[in-house]
């Protein structure tokens, strides 16, 4: 039988099993797993074995089989699920992952499994220990699948029908919708010129339908955070173990749904923030006890929906950051002037850690250790049309708050005119727009400033930053307030064109590598605009 049509499905389903696998192992190792988790783990290994054998992948089937056997011994309570077993299983899962990657790329290499199979088959606990937690709530004798909670059973009865769709199809759908929206704006422009009532009517109806279509497609593209969440416990666990820290890690809001494009991009930044939290934010168990905290540190990853945004928060109960110390460091490194530094609010000071080159250095580790690659994190979040904030309290812990749109490709922008061209700024990056009387501008040194809500903000010219000549400025200067290098600033433009939804297109080379450009779009009148990545302008 020709098995090639089944290969993609084999790869995707195996990967689903492996992801669940790692998460369950960590859960069981921490003692927070249930008996059902143990069975789920066993079933995963069992399914993997069956699928691999059917496909004729003998090595994958064999390794899964040894893993299944070890789990069978745990299931029958011949062994206790301890760290040694967790290590072996995770090692096995890693190896399986590589083997499945080989399958997906059609590599015909035979992976050397070393003596893993032997170690799995002959595992003995290092020392007889206590009873693992999942055995503690035994209600039924061992069987292949215990009865589930009745609630779970009910949910099966009205489970909606689902279909699997290739992700490219979803990408195509949103692309076509984006093109349609661009076209709608073209029709609107034509309609204005023609002053035709029937045409206007038709375009209004078209707009409504397109909005409906867009929101339906956005829904189709949404997948729950759970799709990526299972890899985080492993990241936290492995690092904590390596550096001798104790961490209780919780994930909340796995059911919250996000655009799959955003979700994919979100993984690396979150891994980064979590690693930082384990590595630097949390104290060692000894340090924690010395200041009266429970010895395991706590890290929570919380996802929740807020209107049309998704908020992802990573919080720890570690040592926190000292804003004054961060400002001093930034001044020392010449990243901010002493003047500007002194004016910084704590929230701005924490964002200094996201400046490129703020530090990967030892000296920061003494304070908080933030800063390693945080610039990359922040820039990814902003490219997704989101933004990021940091809260921290010395001695109590820190919170990283990421706000993300539900969908990416179509975003709302503020269109502004600079000299002869129009540029777009994602509205998520615009805190305010206003027109400022010239007489309200004052100077400190060479820096122009203005007051807003009792705060002194630097005033910069977007024309100058981008190298355009200034337009004819009147008595009122149009400007928008945004965050630039961790600092709120006012950016003066020639004029506001208005707010509009646009369909973002990625820039090709060589433009894609230019700093400060976040993409391009075509307006209804055919004009091409660049979308500014404000945070990386300077």
């Amino acid at each position, binding site marked *: *039988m020709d098995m090639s*049509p*089944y290969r993609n*499905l*084999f790869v995707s*389903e195996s990967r689903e099993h492996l992801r669940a696998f790692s998460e369950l192992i960590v859960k069981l190792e921490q003692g927070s797993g249930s008996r059902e988790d143990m*069975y*789920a783990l*066993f*079933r995963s290994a*069992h*399914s993997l*074995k*069956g*699928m691999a*054998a*059917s496909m004729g992948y003998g090595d994958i*089937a064999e390794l899964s089989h040894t893993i299944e056997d070890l789990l069978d011994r745990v299931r029958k309570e011949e062994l206790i699920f301890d760290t040694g077993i967790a290590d072996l299983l995770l090692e096995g899962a890693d190896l399986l992952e590589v083997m499945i990657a080989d399958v997906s790329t059609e590599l015909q290499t035979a992976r050397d499994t070393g003596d893993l199979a032997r170690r799995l088959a002959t595992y003995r606990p290092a020392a007889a220990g206590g009873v693992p937690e999942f055995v503690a709530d035994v209600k039924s004798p061992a*069987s*292949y*699948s215990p*009865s*589930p909670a009745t609630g*779970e*059973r009910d949910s*099966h*009865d009205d*489970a909606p029908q689902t279909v*699997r769709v290739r992700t490219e199809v979803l990408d195509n759908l949103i692309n076509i919708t984006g093109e349609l929206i661009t076209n709608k704006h073209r029709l609107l422009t034509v309609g204005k010129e023609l002053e035709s009532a029937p045409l206007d009517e038709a375009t209004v109806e078209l707009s409504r339908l397109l909005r409906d279509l867009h929101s339906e497609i956005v829904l189709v593209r949404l997948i729950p955070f759970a799709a990526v969440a299972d890899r985080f416990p492993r990241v936290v666990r492995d690092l904590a173990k390596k550096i001798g820290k104790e961490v209780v890690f919780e994930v909340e809001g796995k059911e919250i749904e996000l655009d799959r494009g955003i979700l994919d991009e979100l993984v690396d930044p979150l891994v980064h923030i979590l690693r930082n939290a384990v590595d630097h934010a949390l104290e060692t168990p000894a340090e924690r006890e010395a200041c009266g905290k429970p010895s395991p540190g706590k890290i929570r990853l919380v996802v929740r929906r807020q209107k049309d945004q998704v908020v992802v928060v990573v919080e720890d109960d570690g040592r926190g950051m000292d804003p004054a110390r961060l400002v001093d460091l930034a001044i020392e490194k010449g990243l901010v002037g002493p003047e500007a530094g002194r004016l910084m609010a704590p929230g701005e000071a924490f964002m200094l850690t996201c400046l490129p080159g703020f530090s990967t250095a030892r000296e920061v580790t003494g304070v908080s250790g933030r800063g390693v690659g945080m610039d990359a994190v922040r820039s990814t979040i902003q490219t997704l049309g989101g933004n990021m904030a940091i809260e921290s309290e010395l001695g109590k812990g820190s919170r990283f708050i990421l706000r993300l749109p539900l969908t990416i490709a179509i975003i709302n922008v503020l269109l502004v005119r600079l000299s002869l061209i129009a540029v777009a700024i994602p509205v998520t990056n615009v805190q305010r727009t206003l027109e400022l009387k010239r007489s309200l501008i004052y100077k400190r040194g060479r820096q122009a400033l203005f007051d807003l809500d009792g705060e002194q903000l630097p005033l910069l010219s977007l024309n100058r930053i981008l190298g355009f000549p200034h337009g004819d400025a009147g008595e009122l200067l149009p400007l928008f307030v945004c965050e630039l290098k961790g600092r709120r600033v006012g950016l003066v433009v020639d004029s506001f064109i208005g707010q509009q939804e646009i369909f973002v297109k990625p820039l090709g080379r060589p433009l894609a590598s230019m700093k400060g450009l976040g993409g391009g779009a075509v307006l209804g009148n055919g004009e091409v605009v660049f979308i500014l990545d404000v945070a990386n302008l300077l």
Partner: protein
Amino acid sequence: MGHKVLLVDDSLFMRNMLRGIFESEGHEIVAEAADGVEAVRKYRDFRPDITTMDIVMPAKNGIEALREIRAIDGNACVIMCSAVGQESLMNAAQQAGASDFILKPFNTERVREVIRRVAGD
């Protein structure tokens, strides 16, 4: 003459493979189920001529599902799918009224043989 078939397996991959084999034999897959609870419900709804039943599944295992299906319909034709090394389970399945067995990994020819046998062709 094609028969109506219900496929029960928690693996989509396995269901797809079986679907391929059954369809090549001219049978119609009327429904699929991914666990024992869904299997019993779909059996009741679709009344298939043939059901294939995986054993190791979440929510309710294949043997329990088999028992419930046989309680609904004493003549239900259920083919159990099990892996090598599950002989004790196969005994239990036989007692619960399994019509036949398919061993995993599937051998296409063997599966066809079993299908033809239970379908009475």
